[in-house]
């Protein structure tokens, strides 16, 4: 469908959308006047019953831990999908131009950018681990920390050394890490089923709120998710970089 036809259709449908939006806006409650009962109940029990000071993590990894299994496997299966779509096609071949990929010409990768990017590697990994293990106390957790962790190897790519990035985070190792993270999270839930009879019911002592080893299963679940998320992002990025830098040829 050409751009003109699409815009014409949008022009016809637009007033309808506008009318629906106007009707919706007239019935909206005032901003800030929300009194949802679930939020109030959970705010009341977060610290006293679940011993976690960050309620978002408490919800994510404990109260609705079962939903997070689904969320985690959405990520896992989509990465499998990316690997499948970006596989080597007929007529393509992997070709490593040693001099080019090792020192690939990342546009504008000046010496100062390289120095900064390499300096970012240890700090990204440290901050990532910190965010993952403190999820039950302060904002953060496995999802956020996992992304920060994955930035470490990515910074090596930014420094213009794709092959070094692959050496720091070998694809096989990253894939194993991703799978272990996904399986580990499911195992945390299974632990609840085995020890206290309910899937994803907490089975680890709750500890003192505010301490790093508190909130029962949450730190464990957070580490598993962190591993899975950082693995998933690295596998995904590697697929795209391979397309740009290693896979050559193919039918047009």
């Amino acid at each position, binding site marked *: *469908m*050409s*751009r003109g036809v*699409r*815009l014409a*259709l*949008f022009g016809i449908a637009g007033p309808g*959308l506008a009318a629906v*939006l106007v009707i919706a*806006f007239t019935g*909206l409650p*005032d*901003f*800030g*006047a*929300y*009194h*949802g009962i*679930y*939020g109030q109940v*959970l*705010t009341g029990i*977060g*610290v*006293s019953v679940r011993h976690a*000071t*960050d*309620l*978002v993590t*408490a*919800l*994510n990894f404990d109260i*609705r831990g079962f*939903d997070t299994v689904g*969320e985690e496997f*959405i*990520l896992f299966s*989509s*990465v499998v*999908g*990316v690997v499948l*779509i*970006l596989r080597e*096609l007929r007529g393509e071949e992997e070709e490593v131009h040693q001099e080019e990929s090792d020192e690939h010409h990342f546009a504008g990768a000046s010496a100062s950018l390289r120095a900064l990017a390499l300096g970012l590697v240890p700090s990204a990994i440290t901050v990532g681990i910190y965010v993952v293990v403190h999820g039950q*106390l*302060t*904002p953060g957790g496995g*999802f956020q920390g996992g992304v920060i962790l994955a930035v470490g190897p990515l910074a090596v790519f930014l420094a213009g050394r794709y092959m070094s990035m692959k050496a720091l985070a070998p694809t096989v190792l990253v894939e194993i890490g991703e799978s272990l993270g996904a399986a580990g999270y499911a195992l945390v839930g299974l632990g609840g089923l085995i020890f206290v009879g309910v899937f994803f019911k907490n089975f680890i002592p709750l500890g003192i709120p*505010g301490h790093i080893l508190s909130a029962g299963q949450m730190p464990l679940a957070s580490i598993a998710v962190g591993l899975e998320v950082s693995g998933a992002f690295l596998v*995904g990025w590697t*697929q*795209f970089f391979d*397309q740009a830098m290693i896979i050559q040829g*193919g*039918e*047009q």
Partner: protein
Amino acid sequence: MSFLPFAVAAWLFVAGLYGVVSSQNLVRTIISLTVVQSATYVLLLGIGYVNGAKAPIFADIPQVSTAVDPVVQVLVLVDIVVEATVTALLLALAVQAHKRFGSLDPHDLRALQD
């Protein structure tokens, strides 16, 4: 102006939708789709806001403080994960489409032949 956050959500939605409709490049279509999805973050966080309330982190505030709704914040987290996965899959499809048709203009895409 107590509806301003909701108006921002609607504006992001419509602006992203226009981007999808008017796009002549698949990468631009995908980025526009992420703009549409950003509208849901603003909408969800706007719904959960409570006047005068604090963030639902009790590490340094009294346990009895009023907090904004943590449920919608968790939903935003799920939303972001879904957006990341959808974007990755669509970009992978765009890469293969460009290989097959030599163009990223959606108008140039033909039926897949094998």
